[in-house]
């Protein structure tokens, strides 16, 4: 009975979404205040019923209701409670419910934090989101209902959650990623509302910016969590594999990064308006495409849910409606918007445009590489796979170029900057970066590594030009401290995020270049050296977990004779499915990670195993944390809070003028 309530609640949310996707939009078009004002209560209603729906699904999991097909497929009586609750997103149906619920949450947030915007704009934004929500719920009800029952004979026990998913990473990665992903729908809805109303001005950009920044920050964290999880759970020693399902978040992220930069230009200078709108549409398209690829079975991947062409056709329909529709709207409306092009060839506008072009090219290359195997199959009927070499060959030089521009951009002035000024400001910085880049890694490593030299030079370039810029911006104040206080939050946000980029760059370069790994067969008592570390395999013991049994190995780790403690990797067998799974042991550190994965047992208690030393790998995720923090800080700038007063003042003036005209 209770699962039917969940289903019923989903249907109610559907009905309210239909109203939300129509009434406020019509109201906004006709200027009907009452119809427009329905947007907020309808949004609250949709959110409430989506929440009830997802809670009931979680309840079905917690109470082991295996008559619900989705529960039977993804849970088991032995599954620990925390995984039962989160198994809600352990498969296609439930994770799509989570996705839709996230959209509901964002809609609610828009309806609450939009007091400063005019009601017709809010009505349009929520209306557009309502249409999306309607499509998502319809998709669930029609093709992937999480509340479907197994009648008349439900199974005694469930099939269990995929063992690779039984981990903390599974609890936090999908919700964060989805939240970031879906956040771009809000920015998209702002863009569509602006196109519909024809009001594509600085105010629109200012309203969109905090939402774009926050979504971008959450998406950054979501992707980083996925990378970290894959690193320690899948045990292949990598942190990014260019998997077809990893790529769409990256595509979205790259478009999103371009978008937050472009929005800055549109807000501050009123230019690139149509370009910014297009980026908002593209970033959202990236997120929808990610859903499509994961859920349609279009590509084979470790992430892909079960393939089903009927779902694929449905999602393609949603894709066509949302992206196709908005691009056509864009084609008709965008030419009407005039940008005043008043800037020189050397100016911050141009540098930000360069940033955008690089990011969009990078994104398009990743997109092409992801879909190319499918394109190839569609045309030739043969299968090929595009490996990391393609992505690396394109992506790495583009990012290096981006970092070069990044150093100059913040230093540059709007409208016009003289080349001689830039050379005066940055010439010494460039030389200093190069000197640090050549000397630091060479002295520390006692060897010449080109990768390290390039990476350290670029990172030094980011950090030094950043410090120089801060010094410039605070030099005309009485004291440095007063100067630093005078800088805006959005400036600090930008610099924090750029600093994160420097950290990530070092992490990526050093991990790729200096990682060491050894696959060995060791009997108890034997040891092996990897890098400057010594690993001794002591023994194994059998242990029993809640829903698995395991062999746990014990390793002593030391460096130059100093003990660094023990590592205990496991080889588990999950009872419900008999799936083996390996749990690696990691000794994490700021400058290096050590980790051991256990393979198989051979004769005489000897085990195969792989041991890795990964220098600087934490810096990759640390960089992502800095970026996300920067994005969030920038969203908190007081400029966005002041909008309200300013807008109200303008409204008052406008109505005063109207009154004068009327009288």
């Amino acid at each position, binding site marked *: 009975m209770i699962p039917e309530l969940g289903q019923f609640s989903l249907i109610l949310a559907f009905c309210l979404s239909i109203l939300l996707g129509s009434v406020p939009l019509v109201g906004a078009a006709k200027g009907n205040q009452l119809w427009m004002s329905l947007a907020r209560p309808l949004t609250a209603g949709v959110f409430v019923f989506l929440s009830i729906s997802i809670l009931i699904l979680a309840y079905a999991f917690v109470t082991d209701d295996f008559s619900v097909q989705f529960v039977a497929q993804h849970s088991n009586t032995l599954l620990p409670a925390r995984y039962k609750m989160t198994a809600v997103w352990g498969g296609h149906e439930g994770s799509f419910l989570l996705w839709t619920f996230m959209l509901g949450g964002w809609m609610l947030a828009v309806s609450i934090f939009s007091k400063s915007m005019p009601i017709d704009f809010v009505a349009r934004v929520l209306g557009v989101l309502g249409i999306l929500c309607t499509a998502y719920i319809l998709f669930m009800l029609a093709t992937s209902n999480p509340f479907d029952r197994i009648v008349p004979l439900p199974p005694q026990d469930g099939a269990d959650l995929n063992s690779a998913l039984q981990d903390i990473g599974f609890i936090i990665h999908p919700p964060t990623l989805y939240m970031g992903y879906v956040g771009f729908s809000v920015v998209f809805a702002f863009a569509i509302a602006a196109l519909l109303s024809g009001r594509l001005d600085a105010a629109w950009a200012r309203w969109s910016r905090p939402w774009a920044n926050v979504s971008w920050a959450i998406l950054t964290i979501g992707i980083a969590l996925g990378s970290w999880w894959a690193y320690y759970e899948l045990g292949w020693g990598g942190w990014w594999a260019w998997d077809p399902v990893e790529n769409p978040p990256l595509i979205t992220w790259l478009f999103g990064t371009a978008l937050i930069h472009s929005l800055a230009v549109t807000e501050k200078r009123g230019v690139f308006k149509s370009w910014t709108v297009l980026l908002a*549409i593209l970033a959202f398209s990236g997120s929808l495409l990610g859903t499509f690829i994961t859920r349609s*079975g279009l590509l084979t991947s470790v992430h892909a849910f079960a393939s089903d062409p009927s779902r694929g056709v449905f999602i393609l329909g949603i894709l066509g409606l949302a992206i196709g529709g908005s691009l056509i709207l864009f084609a008709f409306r965008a*030419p009407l918007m005039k940008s005043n092009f008043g800037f020189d060839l050397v100016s911050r506008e141009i540098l930000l445009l360069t940033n955008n072009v690089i990011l969009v090219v990078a994104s398009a290359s990743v997109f092409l590489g992801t*879909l190319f195997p499918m394109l190839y199959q*569609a045309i030739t009927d*043969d*299968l090929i796979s595009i490996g990391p070499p393609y992505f690396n060959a394109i992506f790495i030089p583009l990012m290096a170029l981006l970092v070069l521009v990044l150093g100059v951009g913040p230093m540059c002035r709007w409208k016009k900057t003289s080349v001689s000024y830039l050379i005066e400001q940055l010439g010494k910085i460039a030389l200093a970066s190069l000197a640090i880049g050549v000397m630091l890694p060479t002295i520390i490593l006692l060897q010449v590594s080109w990768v390290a030299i390039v990476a350290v030079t670029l990172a030094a370039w980011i950090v030094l030009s950043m410090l120089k810029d801060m010094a410039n911006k605070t030099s005309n104040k009485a004291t440095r401290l007063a100067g630093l206080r005078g800088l805006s939050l959005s400036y600090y946000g930008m610099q924090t995020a750029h600093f994160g980029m420097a950290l990530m760059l070092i992490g990526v370069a050093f991990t790729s270049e200096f990682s060491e790994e050894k696959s060995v067969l060791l009997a108890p008592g034997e040891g092996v050296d990897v890098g400057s570390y010594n690993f001794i395999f002591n023994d194994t013991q059998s242990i029993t977990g809640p829903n698995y049994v395991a062999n746990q190995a014990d390793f002593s780790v030391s460096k130059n004779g100093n003990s660094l403690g023990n590592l205990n990797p496991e080889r588990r067998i999950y009872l419900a499915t008999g*799936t083996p799974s390996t749990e690696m042991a990691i000794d994490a550190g700021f400058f290096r990670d050590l980790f051991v994965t256990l393979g198989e047992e051979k004769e005489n208690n000897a085990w195969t195993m792989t041991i890795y030393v990964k220098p600087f790998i934490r810096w990759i995720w640390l960089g992502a944390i800095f970026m996300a923090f920067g994005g969030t800080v920038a969203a908190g700038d007081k400029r966005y809070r002041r909008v309200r007063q300013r807008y109200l003042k303008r409204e008052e003036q406008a109505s005063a003028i109207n009154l004068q005209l009327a009288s």
Partner: protein
Amino acid sequence: MSRFNFFIPAIGFFVLSLILWRGLYLDPKELPSMLIDKPMPEFALTTVDGNEISNADLPNRMFLLNVWGSYCLPCLIEHPTLMRLAEEGEIPVIGINYRDKKQLALGWLRDNGNPFTFSILDESGRFGIDLGVYGAPETYLVDADGVIRYRHVSVLDEGVWQQDFLPAINKLQAESYAQ
């Protein structure tokens, strides 16, 4: 800027959707083997029962080569179909016990029944690499001359047997009559 330029994104997207739509009806699992219409690679291994075996021991008629493992759950799904084929004598089935342990493999055959004329033991996965195996289960159709003619990745159930294998077998038989 010409107004037409603003339509470029929409047109690009339209083309992309057509491709995606076409892509939905392609099966990424349908991996063509490098070895289709090539003879089976040379091998000299043992069976799970410990007998030595090489290419010369393969049947002189058309047969199925099924990649399996005791760890492989989908193999249990296709197991009844393989049992039926073997019991009814429709076609001999030869197993490749892929990346498995001998004891576990023997236990699995004892518990579930043995549809295989014999199973080649490929503990290291080396033979699987020569054959281009993607993972268990996987099934190859090999003709009387020891040439691989068809490959199916993933479960071989009755439906797949009727839809994919029977037509492939009929085609091969028609070819051999024609010669």
